[in-house]
């Protein structure tokens, strides 16, 4: 049968006109790894749902992308992650906002979809639900990277507007 997979992997630099050769190579390697993870499932006849979760998990674990490990910082210096997943066959959906301890937020979103009657859980409740579902927990420090902290400090020093997306590395 026909299968297809498409991914996007924002590193927080959508407004930049140029990447260095090293940055370009890192981004392409990350995208290639995510494609590989999803394709491995689809090639074997696996589900689209499993494929999108697998691809996103790779990008969440890659510190160069703004999701999971490598997420940007809030103003208060925290990493708070949001994620969602949806199954087109049933229109079942799950999502989380302000997740702070689940290694892969997309997997927590899927647990919301499959193991709760809800669609969106947030904050401390989402974190607690994750523990109850026995999902992999990490110390919040695991998500933090020096580069993202530098970006937060740069933003604060520039005192830019609250929605200056060029500066906010979103």
């Amino acid at each position, binding site marked *: 049968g026909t299968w297809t997979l498409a991914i996007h992997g924002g590193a927080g630099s959508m407004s930049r006109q140029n990447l260095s050769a090293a940055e370009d190579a890192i981004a392409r390697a990350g995208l290639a790894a995510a494609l590989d993870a999803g394709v491995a499932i689809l090639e074997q006849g696996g589900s689209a749902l499993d494929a*999108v979760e697998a691809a996103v998990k790779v990008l969440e674990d890659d510190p160069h992308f703004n999701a999971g490990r490598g997420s940007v910082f809030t103003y*208060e210096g925290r990493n708070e992650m949001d994620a969602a997943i*949806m199954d087109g066959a049933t229109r079942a959906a799950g999502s989380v906002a302000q997740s702070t301890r689940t290694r892969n937020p997309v997997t927590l979103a899927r647990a919301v979809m499959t193991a709760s009657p809800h669609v969106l859980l947030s904050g401390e409740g989402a974190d607690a639900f994750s523990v109850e579902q026995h999902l992999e927990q990490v110390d919040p420090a695991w998500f933090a990277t020096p580069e993202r902290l530098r970006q937060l400090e740069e933003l604060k020093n520039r005192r830019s507007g609250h929605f200056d997306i060029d500066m906010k590395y979103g």
Partner: protein
Amino acid sequence: TVGAVATDAQGHVAAATSTGGLTGKRWGRIGDTPLIGAGTYADDRACAVSATGAGEYFIRIGVAHEIAARVRLQKEALEQAAATVFSELTEMGGVGGVILCAPDGQHAWLFNTPAMYRGSASADGARRIAIY
């Protein structure tokens, strides 16, 4: 923000999106990613969509659902539906991009920013990675 959309060999579609949000966000700000229909949507009757960009605009338009609705009800092609919704997004001042795929295996992407890291692969062996 990262995301993926897929069509499997059974013709089912799915979408997933994940993000750290915006640097320096305050007051518990939440963007479009976890809002089903804004940044993420999947419907076998139409397509799957994952979005990235200025979330507040995607929320106001309901970008992901709006694209899927146009495909389902207007029978528009993926590119046409996305372009129509993005013209509205751009007019409002929103920036970002979407990736899409349909149950028949077609896929597309559209963005109104200089760069969107993206990639695709298909059963026919096609594989592409692009940034600009």
